[in-house]
């Protein structure tokens, strides 16, 4: 079998698509004006940014004034959560799920340290947050709920529209980290009834270092940075012009291609899952059906995830793992632990995330290189009881 390069880590980041790069190039070359400048080179760039804002809004079912561009998903999450907390007079109660990305979880943890009350919602074995659990956790002083649209590790798609509806009814702000969802699922801010929604361009074949935050009209938000008045003062500083242009282009195309892409990825995903589970002593992590089209997450018993990852890397396959050893920390993925996986299974998780460039051939290749690797690692594992027959 010939060695190939197969990128199966689109959940970490995805290649910038040609159309987005092409849209960016003029702004990396002759259209270099500062959008805040009054002269015509500046005004032309301002026009382009405002057009990008309209495109972004359109793709999300929002109004242009409701979009602010950020330097990525992490910044969008920080501005949303800390900004909403600081806009409150006094402290209050917020709730989030135990499977959020660190850029949400750590902000909440810090707010807790500052005197806010924070509830970490439990999830079921599939990583699902139930709207009933949310409802039960509410208090009179709850001002914010933050639950991600789809989980980055296990791909579970959360019932955000239901949570949004219950938040809206009670006048509680609702933020969703849609970084993994945008470009893979239909995302409509009105249907989801969100007040704040974060996205990051590099997850949908846009450029790295740029994201956006949807801020519903009249949502109280205190800016975290001071400076120029850019992005309605919520994100001051000279705009990342090429990044913003690239984001809008990539997003528009991703939304256009969504139905077709989703169908295609789901087919690949399901075939991949089937092949992995067929290797035996393996379990699927995350929800079997309420799941991102491109996400595969499987735990192999008796094997450590980083070893799998390294083995795959040597065969040209880029993957990711919830193993503690991949992050240099001692604890394995908080997501897998919150879902109730044992330490060993949590350490044996392998995440394969599919994207635009992947084909049936990629799936075949991964399965072909993974089978002997799993076999080899099992045979050398101190935990392996031997082939069950």
């Amino acid at each position, binding site marked *: 079998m010939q060695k190939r390069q197969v990128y199966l880590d689109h959940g970490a980041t995805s290649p910038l698509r040609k159309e987005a790069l092409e849209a960016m190039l003029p702004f990396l070359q002759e259209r270099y004006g500062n959008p805040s400048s009054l002269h015509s080179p500046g005004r032309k760039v301002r026009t382009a940014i405002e057009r990008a804002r309209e495109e972004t809004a359109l793709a999300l079912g929002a109004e242009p004034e409701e979009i602010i561009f950020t330097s990525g998903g992490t910044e969008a999450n920080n501005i949303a959560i800390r900004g909403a907390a600081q806009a409150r007079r006094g402290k209050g109660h917020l709730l989030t799920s135990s499977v959020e990305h660190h850029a949400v979880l750590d902000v909440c943890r810090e707010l807790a340290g500052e005197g806010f009350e924070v509830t970490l919602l439990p999830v079921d074995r599939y990583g699902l947050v139930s709207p009933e659990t949310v409802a039960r956790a509410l208090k009179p002083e709850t001002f914010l709920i933050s639950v991600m649209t789809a989980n980055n590790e296990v791909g579970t798609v959360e019932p955000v529209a239901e949570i949004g509806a219950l938040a809206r009814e009670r006048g509680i702000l609702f933020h969703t980290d849609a970084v993994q969802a945008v470009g893979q699922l239909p995302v409509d801010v009105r249907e989801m009834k969100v007040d704040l929604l974060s996205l990051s361009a590099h997850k949908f074949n846009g450029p790295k270092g740029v994201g956006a935050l949807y801020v519903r009209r009249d949502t109280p938000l205190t800016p975290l940075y001071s400076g120029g008045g850019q992005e309605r003062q919520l994100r001051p500083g000279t705009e990342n012009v090429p990044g913003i242009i690239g984001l809008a282009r990539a997003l528009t195309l991703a939304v256009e291609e969504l139905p077709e892409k989703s169908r295609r990825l789901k087919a690949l995903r399901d075939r991949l899952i089937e092949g992995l589970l067929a290797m035996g002593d393996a379990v699927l992590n995350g929800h079997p059906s309420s799941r991102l089209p491109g996400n595969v997450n499987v735990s192999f018993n*008796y*094997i*450590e*995830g*980083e*070893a799998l990852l*390294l*083995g795959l890397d*040597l065969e040209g396959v880029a993957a990711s793992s919830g*193993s*503690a*050893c*991949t992050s*240099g920390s*001692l604890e*394995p993925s908080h997501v897998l632990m919150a879902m109730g996986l044992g*330490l*060993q299974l949590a*350490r044996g998780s392998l995440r394969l995330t599919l994207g635009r460039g992947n084909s049936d051939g990629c799936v075949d290749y991964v399965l072909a290189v993974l089978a002997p690797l799993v076999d080899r690692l099992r*045979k*050398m*594992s*101190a*935990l*392996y009881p031997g082939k069950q027959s």
Partner: protein
Amino acid sequence: MYNDKVVDHFTNPRNVGEMPEADIIGEAGSFKCGDTMKIYLKIEQDRITGVKFQTFGCGAAIASSSMLTEMVKGKTLEEAQRVTNEDVALELGGLPPLKMHCSNLAADALKDAIAKYRIKQSSSRA
């Protein structure tokens, strides 16, 4: 991340597998991160004449296990006992700082084996 030597020991680990005829089996596990190793020793006149291992752990843990077995093969127990995890890491040409703790596993399992062997010896002599 890992240098070529580490990768080589991960991809083609030396002395891997069980050893039914082992004189003693040592074990070590990291309570915290869950890494686990078994080391099988064949010992003749206080000298290691045969060694095998099994490891559940990351690339660094596997490579360290493999390297340690190579390093102690033929050594007296006295000599083998002096091998530290730093020695193993050094012999591997270095490990990433965050991965140094993974190399403890192998040295610990070996020490466990030697200790058990000594107990077994003294009790059989007694």
